């Protein structure tokens, strides 16, 4: 009899020990789940976010929204806005002719209630910001202009490029196209650089680290490369097994006095402490014991853009399903 009882206890122990072995713990999951709000944009793909002083704007497709308290309001006013940037404490956007057969682009400024024309172009345009510098792509010939002053672009001698992203470390500016990088001080002719090593993938995003003023590039296969302060001598840093579909999903932020590279992928975001080569999913903090359990949606969401907030320790993640903010205490809140 005693033998059977012992055998039964062993069997029960084995069953319990192997049960839910791939799970994260039922009561643990319940204890870590965080309720997220729903808002006007919480279910929409958010492609871009811009802070203008303390005001937050988000772009969903060609619509621009502004946040007031917890409410988001569409301020597009019927315009189809393809990109937004901050300049001189105002929001600027570029619109193009809605008729795909017709060319014509405009830079518009938003004063909080209406959009005003700043500059009219004969061709479609793309306006984006690179570390307080502004890049303008004009028309199908991809004439490049860049400047730190949104009101006076300077033409480059380069053309025929489809620029995806740019970064500026205070001295050197770098732009990337799908398979090339160009470096110079912004606003003058740029020089094509050659990636060394096995940088064969399609480039997706570029950013800098403010600790060393190095540049970082990531390609669509998740291969990360680093340059020196002159934007040269590119070396492989590490690779993640994720696909990166969109440019702009590479950023940096300083969290608790430590600078991190933040990499948005098609499957959540990764981080790498500057000075190291380890890229990992968000690590546990005192307020978030298990990121995947607390934020299962964000953990697998496609990230369009990483945007560091002007508030210390905070950044935004524009994703395929809403906008998320990393708060000072390490928690995340859907906006």
């Amino acid at each position, binding site marked *: 009899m005693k033998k059977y009882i012992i055998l039964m206890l062993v069997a029960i122990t084995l069953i*319990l*020990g192997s049960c839910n*072995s791939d799970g994260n713990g*039922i*009561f643990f999951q*319940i*204890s870590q789940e965080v309720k997220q709000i729903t808002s006007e944009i919480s279910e929409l793909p958010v492609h871009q976010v811009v802070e203008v002083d303390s005001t937050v704007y988000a772009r969903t497709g060609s619509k621009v929204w502004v946040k007031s308290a917890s409410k988001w309001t569409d301020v597009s006013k019927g315009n189809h806005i393809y990109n937004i940037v901050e300049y001189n404490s105002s929001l600027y956007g570029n619109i193009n002719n809605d008729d795909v057969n017709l060319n014509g682009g405009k830079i518009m400024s938003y004063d909080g209630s209406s959009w005003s024309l700043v500059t009219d172009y004969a061709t479609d345009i793309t306006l984006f910001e690179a570390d307080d510098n502004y890049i303008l792509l004009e028309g199908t010939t991809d004439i490049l202009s860049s400047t730190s002053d949104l009101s006076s672009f300077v033409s480059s001698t380069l053309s025929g490029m489809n620029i995806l992203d740019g970064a500026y470390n205070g001295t050197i500016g770098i732009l990337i196209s799908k398979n090339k990088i160009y470096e110079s001080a912004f606003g003058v002719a740029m020089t094509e650089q050659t990636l060394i090593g096995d940088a064969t993938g399609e480039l997706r995003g570029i950013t800098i680290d403010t600790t060393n003023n190095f540049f970082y590039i990531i390609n669509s296969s998740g291969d990360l490369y680093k340059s020196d302060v002159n934007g040269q001598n590119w070396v492989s840093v590490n690779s993640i097994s994720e696909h990166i579909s969109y440019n702009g999903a590479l950023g940096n932020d300083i969290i608790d006095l430590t600078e991190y590279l933040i990499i948005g992928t098609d499957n959540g975001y990764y981080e790498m402490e500057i000075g190291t080569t380890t890229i990992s999913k968000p690590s546990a903090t005192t307020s978030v014991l298990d990121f995947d359990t607390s934020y299962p949606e964000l953990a697998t969401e496609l990230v369009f853009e990483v945007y560091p907030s002007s508030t210390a320790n905070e950044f935004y993640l524009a994703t395929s399903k809403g906008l998320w903010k990393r708060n000072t205490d390490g928690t995340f809140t859907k906006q």
Partner: protein
Amino acid sequence: MNKKYFFIILLILLVSLASFAQETEENFLEPYSRGSQTFSINLGLLVPLFIIFPNQDTVFVSFQNQLSLGGTGSLEWATYLDNRWSIGVGLAGTFAGTPQENTHSLIPITANLTYNFLFNSFEVPLIMGAGFAVNQVDTQVYFGLIAKIGAGFFWNMNAEWAFGLRTQYWLVPEIYFGEQADKTAYGNFLDIGLSAKFHF
């Protein structure tokens, strides 16, 4: 939402059993003896209390804001060993909501031991139970143990029917070994509800 309506309908059915049973009122002195059997239907609320994480820095974590007030329902059969002690089995089910709108559920199957204090037409059962429970949330399912202890207060309307209130404290261990040992937890719940007991 549908579960809430279902739960309300079951409560109404339970109350309506009382009026049905009144039609066969009888006088009695000792309702139970060896071999007596009872069948109970219980419906109530599941109050999530707290979780114990013995291998985490924060050992006690409240269910507050993490698990909603839930519903419970159970069916129990018992047979009496004498006029006070009974043994039986029970099948229960619970549901409660999590912050991310997942449903947590428990399906315990327990062996029960009950001692009945009798006062005229009233009885106060002290209940202990132990068994297995299917513990589930989201995509996770855990097959584990459960222990219950509680008490009730019943009015014997006649020789066949008794109605009352019942509360039970549930301890639901979720034990892991090895790398998952830090996820080991003990869920603590309170089951409070109405009960209808048929004696045959």
